[in-house]
């Protein structure tokens, strides 16, 4: 299989413009004859749904939540980047492009990243027009803040609820299209399979989560906007319902899965409290703007923070990275936290935590300023831990947060399957091996508002609505039968362990063996263990209830079954990538100072895997990455 990224020729500054002109257009009168299915209603899905419906396409959206407004984008706190240069601090499209390629540790496609930076400014305009109440200065102009990994202030925010407000903006735009009859939203509807016929995506199989009914939906194009797969680790900052089923089912049907080992660990999360823990809570990265990270200099120092004098504290990020200090990118901050905890200097229960201290900032700026900036986050922390961060430092620890990997897509955001587009976190995206803070919201909305609406036209213009399959075509009935059979099988095992117990076991194995640090040994061990867990799952899981009812255990069982297969690919990719880059840290490949060491000669590519069967080895395809503009160098934040 030859991977064609379809990146246009010419200088990077003109590629997107040229491409928009070169792409075919669908005649306005014909648009309503084309039907597009969008799975997922987060930032990418909702903004794409609204935009495509406005253009005149027939749009059918699906989400597993009870309302499109609840997609996990809503939980993003910190902000959204845009190269507006409102702060007159030297920002530009080129700088945002440069920062993103460098931040991604030179494992992203340059042309895509440049387009993302180019579009970023229009996103802010669009969101403001839709009524997103971004933070303002007293002058009435939009406010900005700086965010981890950059030296300019280009982040727009709405208190600590930026994702919520951006999503409600896209959701309201989509709601208007629903009222006008141009879009439909099917909530409590989960995609359980992709239907492919003749090498083209034809539609999806959906389970109604209230009645359990399985139905076939046919369209001219299918768009997956189903988010990331961090929940493969069981404990992550993702919402409980986030899952990989849509992209994994598409992968099983032929879509290539790229860079699964690029998972991001967020440095500022609330540490685990106990066995019952169901998920982890992120504390926005923006806290690092004012909070100082430290641990005691002495091993095993169990004194309360207030009793540890200044001289006995190690502000290790400020010490090691004087230029960026506490604002180093996420992968660097996370790895350093692990290092000090592994060295026995962690704080809190189990020693798995570091302090994030606001005492200095409160002293310098006053409690009111800190309250204004982070009040809701401090309350949230207090509510969960019963500790007051105005009086004592927060305890934080890294947790899985975001998946840079995902389905492989070309410059048009189309997978290798004709008619299957993948947007937002679900694709292997523009973030390379590490995502910078406040860039996920930017990418989701860029894909949905301003990229896909054009590029999908190019796909649709090449096909005729007359070729759309009827939902009773054998390709659909076969997929329906398979989905029914799978449900029957899960319900019929009636073993002795719950779905969650398997998920927890899998997650812990992944976190220990394929988390912040990975080695040949740990990965080989995981690859031996996962098939055993998978086998036990299919022999010993207990899924109560029936198929034709609201059955949350059955929903979860299907998702965990897919995580089992995905986790194996994740470890295999991590084992194959014999280098360290971004979120992927192989202990065998580090510099003398313990920083990630890339191997550009052998691994400057996107690793796109082809599914060959649950028990057979996948085939690796490589898309070489070329860096014409930003020249790969050892990332330095010192």
């Amino acid at each position: 299989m030859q991977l064609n990224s379809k990146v246009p020729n010419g200088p990077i500054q003109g590629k997107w413009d040229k491409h928009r002109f070169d792409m075919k257009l669908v005649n306005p009168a014909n648009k309503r004859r084309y039907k597009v299915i969008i799975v997922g209603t987060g930032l990418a899905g909702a903004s794409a749904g609204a935009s495509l419906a406005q253009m005149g396409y027939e749009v059918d959206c699906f989400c597993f939540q009870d309302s499109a407004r609840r997609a996990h984008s809503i939980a993003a706190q910190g902000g959204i980047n845009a190269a507006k240069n409102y702060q007159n601090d030297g920002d530009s499209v080129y700088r945002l492009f440069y920062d993103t390629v460098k931040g991604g540790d030179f494992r992203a496609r340059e042309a895509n990243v440049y387009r993302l930076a180019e579009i970023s400014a229009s996103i802010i305009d669009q969101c403001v027009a839709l009524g997103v109440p971004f933070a303002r200065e007293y002058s009435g102009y939009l406010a900005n803040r700086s965010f981890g990994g950059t030296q300019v202030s280009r982040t727009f925010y709405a208190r600590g609820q930026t994702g919520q407000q951006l999503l409600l903006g896209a959701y309201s735009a989509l709601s208007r299209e629903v009222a006008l009859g141009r879009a439909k939203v099917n909530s409590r509807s989960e995609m359980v399979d992709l239907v492919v016929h003749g090498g083209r995506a034809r539609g999806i199989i959906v389970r109604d989560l209230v009645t359990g009914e399985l139905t076939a939906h046919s369209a001219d194009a299918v768009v997956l906007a189903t988010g990331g797969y961090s929940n493969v680790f069981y404990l992550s900052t993702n919402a409980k319902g986030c899952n990989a089923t849509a992209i994994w089912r598409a992968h099983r049907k032929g879509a290539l899965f790229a860079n699964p080992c690029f998972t991001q660990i967020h440095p500022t999360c609330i540490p685990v409290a106990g066995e019952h823990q169901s998920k982890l809570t992120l504390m926005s990265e923006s806290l690092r703007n004012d909070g100082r990270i430290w641990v005691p200099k002495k091993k095993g120092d169990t004194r309360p923070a207030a009793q540890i004098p200044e001289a006995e504290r190690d502000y290790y990020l400020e010490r090691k990275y004087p230029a960026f200090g506490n604002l180093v990118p996420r992968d660097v901050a996370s790895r350093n936290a692990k290092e000090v905890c592994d060295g026995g200097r962690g704080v809190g229960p189990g020693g798995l935590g570091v302090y994030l201290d606001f005492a200095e900032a409160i002293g310098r700026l006053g409690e009111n300023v800190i309250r204004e900036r982070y009040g809701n986050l401090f309350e949230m922390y207090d509510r969960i831990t019963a500790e007051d961060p105005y009086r004592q430092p927060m305890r934080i620890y890294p947790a899985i947060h975001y998946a840079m990997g995902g389905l492989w897509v070309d410059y048009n955001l189309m997978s290798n399957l004709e008619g299957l587009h993948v947007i937002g976190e679900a694709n292997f995206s523009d973030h390379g091996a590490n995502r910078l803070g406040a860039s996920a919201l930017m990418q989701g909305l860029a894909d949905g508002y301003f990229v896909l609406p054009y590029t999908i036209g190019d796909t649709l213009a090449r096909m005729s609505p007359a070729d759309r399959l009827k939902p009773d075509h054998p390709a659909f009935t076969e997929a329906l039968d398979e989905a029914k059979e799978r449900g029957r099988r899960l319900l019929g095992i009636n073993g002795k362990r719950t779905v969650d117990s398997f998920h927890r076991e899998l997650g812990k194995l992944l976190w220990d063996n394929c988390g912040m640090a990975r080695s040949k040994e740990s990965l080989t061990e995981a690859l031996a263990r996962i098939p055993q867990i998978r086998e036990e799952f299919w022999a010993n899981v207990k899924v109560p209830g029936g198929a034709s009812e609201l059955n949350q255990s059955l929903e979860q069982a299907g998702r965990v079954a897919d995580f089992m297969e995905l986790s194996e690919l994740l470890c295999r990719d991590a084992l194959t990538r014999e280098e360290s880059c971004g979120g992927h840290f192989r202990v065998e490949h580090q510099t003398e100072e313990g920083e990630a060491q890339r191997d550009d000669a052998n691994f400057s590519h996107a690793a796109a895997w082809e599914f060959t069967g649950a028990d057979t080895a996948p085939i690796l395809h490589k898309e070489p990455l070329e860096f014409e503009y930003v020249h790969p160098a050892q990332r330095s934040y010192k």
Partner: protein
Amino acid sequence: MKLTLRIWRQDGPRDKGKFVAYPVDDVAEDMSFLEMLDVLNERLTLKGERPVAFDSDCREGICGACGFMVSGVAHGPQKLTTACQLFMRHFKDGETVVVEPFRARALPVLKDLIIDRSALDAIVQAGGFISARTGSAPEANAMLIAKPVADRSMDAAACIGCGACIAACPNASAMLFTAAKVSHLGLLPQGQPERRQRALRMVAKMNELGFGGCSNHGECEAACPKGISIDFIARLNRDYLSGSLFEKPEPLSSV
């Protein structure tokens, strides 16, 4: 600590439903309420019983998916807190806790603690938006918005659409939910052109869906996990009144 949970069990929308008592013996203080239900559900599953169905997603208090009555109070005893962020340290050893779904005619029970809130989507679809076609937006800083106005708008926009206000209201009114959206958009300059029509359409939809009227009990504000102020209902009333006086309800148009 030990607790007794009396949980509403209902198989489906047409089932009558009843309370069932479940003793839970080893509740840890740093468990969230939902984590305690997770633990209960694991046990019920292993015993061959049907686990308790409840909605939840982000478990950070922002998505609005969770919510039920905890001993008669929407989202439980802690102020400004969703059920997922309610921790067990707020309960006493030996306590009996009654757990039942939000109840309102317009939000019917689907199963156990899960309700159908699609009526809230329908209210937003009726007018809870600014019509701004993708691509038509002017430069963001071309329009200045005074900070206090933007902040006030944000206060209203913080609504998570959980439905607690409706469950708490003796009339099962959706006025606070609707008022929050009308105020969020109506306070902003971008929201002015459609301001009156928005209020007219959303209120009409609210009435059509079987929500009750507002008689100023104020229970909605007290139950709201995001602290949305009842003052916004006054704004909604004003927009609705001026809409009724000066404009006719017009159908939504794509142009």
